[in-house]
């Protein structure tokens, strides 16, 4: 063995695939997440084409049979939540930002970090393999309610169902490892002088999200193992004829599934906080209050799960309790949004591309928030449950979370990640094309939902009330808007990859920001900082009277 070799510049494999550098792992997560977003987007294109133009052969896919339709919607949901939103929002931004923003040279457990990504990659291999097994990919919806999901005789995708479950379980392992790492790193590796309330909001939010995830995922892992046994060993945990209960899965699933909404929401709120403060040149309005509302939301998110099950056959009296808790959770979230809006007051707002994305997040997320009240109120949920109103509602939360805030984050930190600036003109074209098309996709779906369109149905031909032409026009409108939105993503990809080599070189702090990541060179070298920084103040000191510059970096001793 030649030990000298290891001191040399690492080879391509070592550098890109076996790295323990948090920035490289962040990039691995980000590019993998972006690739999965392309797959998830393609799946959306397939089933929207079937709904917009029923029974026509979909270019690039073919005829969408009922079985394929079920598989495609199941995989779209699973991929977008578990393999796009979580890896990008938590793993990519968490890995990239946490050490840089708290002034550390790397994560607390770099090798666990590497392992986390490798397990995540295996989970993707398992998931993608399920498309090619006998029977095809799992077709029982991302919620996987048994007995449908428990028996191949019912779902007709026996191999796909098991592979889906294994893939989800592996993904959970990856994020448990990641969550431990984010929490420990933030608690232990902060720069000298950085107190709890000096931590930038995005770091706080990712840590809170990790804690919520780790606390809620346990019951679901237990549930998933029981489901795996039902599938493969013919046990009867969810089979009523053998003493099991399908409702058990629904409770375990949603005990995780609802906190999961806040697991992805909080990091998105964090990203938006960083962007808004920089481009409004404003201190965050009520930094501590935002943290308290985030904690309150996190705690409350554990007691709202059964609002997914109002009409599922639970004791109807239980719905009253969960209606109260669900409407209660609107209070901290509304307050958080008010604080973001209030932050704009007295600012000096420049509408750069990242700022447009961040403001769009606030504007669009409010639609998702207010429409949630219709579903949280048990009385109206009787009708709206499992209609397209639900789909439109949660896409008005998830698209701002997983698409809009991610674009805010990528366009904002791109100079730090790659040392180059993105093209502003292309960025703005991409922004307007995406945001306008997004609204044209989902506003019609609120209307078809109110008209009674039920979910996960490949054709409405059998339902006289839904087969009316005016509803079909709405579905077709939505599909065409999706095609527009997807095609605008090409502009983003061109901008992203072209700017990697040809963008204007970025200085260390192009946005004149206060947080620590901007004191490192762009892009930061291995180890991040030439000299580890010391922190003297909170993260959002803009517009202080009596200072020459309108910003006061956290590490500036003067």
């Amino acid at each position, binding site marked *: 063995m030649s030990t000298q070799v290891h001191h040399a510049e690492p080879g391509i494999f070592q550098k890109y695939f076996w790295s323990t550098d948090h920035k490289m792992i962040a990039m691995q997560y980000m590019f993998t997440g972006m690739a999965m977003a392309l797959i998830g987007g393609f799946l959306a294109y397939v089933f929207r084409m079937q709904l917009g133009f029923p029974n026509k052969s979909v270019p690039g896919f073919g005829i969408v049979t009922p079985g394929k339709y*079920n598989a495609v919607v199941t995989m779209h949901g699973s991929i977008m939540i578990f393999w796009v939103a979580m890896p990008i929002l938590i793993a990519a931004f968490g890995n990239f930002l946490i050490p840089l923003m708290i002034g550390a040279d790397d994560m607390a457990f770099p090798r666990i970090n590497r392992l986390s990504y490798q397990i995540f990659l295996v989970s993707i291999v398992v998931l993608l393999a399920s498309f090619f097994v006998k029977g095809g990919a799992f077709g*029982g919806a991302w919620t996987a*309610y048994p*007995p449908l999901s428990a028996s191949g005789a*019912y779902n*007709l995708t026996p191999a796909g169902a098991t592979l889906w479950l294994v893939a989800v379980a592996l993904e959970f392992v990856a994020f448990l490892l990641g969550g431990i790492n984010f929490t420990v790193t933030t608690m232990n590796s902060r720069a000298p002088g950085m107190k709890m309330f000096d931590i930038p909001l995005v770091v706080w939010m990712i840590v809170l999200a990790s804690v919520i995830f780790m606390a809620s995922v346990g019951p679901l892992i237990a549930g998933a193992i029981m489901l795996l046994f039902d599938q493969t060993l013919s046990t009867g945990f969810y089979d*009523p*004829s053998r003493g099991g209960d399908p409702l058990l899965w629904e409770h375990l699933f949603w005990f995780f599934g609802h906190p999961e909404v806040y697991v992805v929401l909080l990091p998105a709120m964090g990203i938006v906080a960083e962007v808004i403060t920089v481009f409004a*040149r*404003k*201190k*965050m*309005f*009520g930094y501590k209050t935002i943290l308290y509302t985030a904690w309150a939301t996190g705690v409350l998110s554990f007691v709202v799960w059964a609002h997914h099950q109002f*009409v599922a*056959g639970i004791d*109807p009296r239980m*719905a*009253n309790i969960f*209606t109260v808790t669900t409407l209660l959770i609107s*209070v901290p979230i*509304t*307050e958080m949004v*008010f*604080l973001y*809006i*209030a932050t*704009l*007051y*007295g*600012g*000096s*707002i*420049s509408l750069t591309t990242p700022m447009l994305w961040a*403001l769009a997040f*606030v504007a669009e997320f*409010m*639609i998702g928030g207010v429409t949630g009240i*219709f579903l949280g*109120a*048990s*009385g*109206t949920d*009787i*009708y709206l449950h*499992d*209609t397209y109103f639900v789909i439109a509602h949660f896409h008005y939360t998830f698209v701002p979370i997983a698409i809009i805030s991610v674009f805010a984050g990528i366009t904002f930190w791109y100079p730090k990640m790659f040392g180059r600036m993105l093209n502003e003109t292309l960025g703005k074209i991409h922004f307007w094309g995406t945001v306008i098309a997004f609204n044209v996709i989902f506003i019609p779906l609120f209307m078809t939902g*109110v008209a*009674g369109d*039920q*979910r996960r*149905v490949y*054709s*409405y031909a*059998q339902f*006289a*009330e839904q087969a009316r032409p005016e509803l079909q026009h709405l579905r077709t409108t939505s599909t065409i808007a999706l095609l527009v939105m997807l095609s605008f993503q090409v502009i983003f990809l061109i901008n992203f990859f072209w700017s990697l080599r040809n963008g204007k070189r970025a200085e260390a702090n192009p946005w004149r920001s206060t947080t620590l990541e901007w004191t490192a060179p762009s892009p930061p070298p291995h180890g991040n900082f030439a000299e580890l920084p010391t922190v003297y103040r909170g993260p959002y000191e803009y*517009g202080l*009277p009596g200072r020459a510059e*309108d910003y006061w970096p956290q590490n500036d001793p003067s």
Partner: protein
Amino acid sequence: MWQRYIIEASTYAQSIDHLFLLIAALVGFWFIVAETVFFWLIFTFRKKDGRPTQHITGEEKHLVRWITIPHFLVILCDIVILVPAIMVWYNVKEAMPPAEQTVRVIGQQWAWSFQEPGPDGILDTADDIRTVGDLHVTVNTTYHFELESRDVVHSFAIPSFRLKQDALPGRTITGWFRPDRVGTYDIQCTQICGIGHAMMAGRIIVETPQDHAAWLLHNSNPSAASEPAAPASQSGSSIVAEVRR
């Protein structure tokens, strides 16, 4: 606005729709106020040369009230929504008005089948009428339905009635409706149940008492009414006992 999309054909359809409109008015108000303030701030505080930004921590008393007052108003609105929401829920799902007629609804991959009492008005006797896909009911009559599933989770939904209830294998869930408008309406399955999910359509035909009586006569065997029949399912026997009590 809402009826343009879907008609109201049961007694509780209107109460659910009114709740929808109440929520729409309240959250609509907040939504418009918040978005207006939001865009006004973006416009008013757009970047202008020579105008410094203000240093505000968000802990100043005169500013914090702009958050705390709306905060309490939001709680108030939540309560204004909560009370009618729970009242509607209670009326539809908890309080069961006494049944004038009882039917059994069975979901299975991928059809709805129904068991309706024959001319004797009693379920689980030999003159019961069993149908697949079509459920015939009389207008202005309170029905209880005994909902069952033979295989996976289904959801029994009649959009025009604003009725939705999941059907679970292994248990019988009882609900009610009272149709108040003659006509034929869709029955959906709203819980994914396999590849035939989109085929799991049914119709509910709401008839006048005369039409329903004619349909009953045409489809049943009146001579069999007095003979007790073997219960349709295992859970059936207990229901028979309950109905006769």
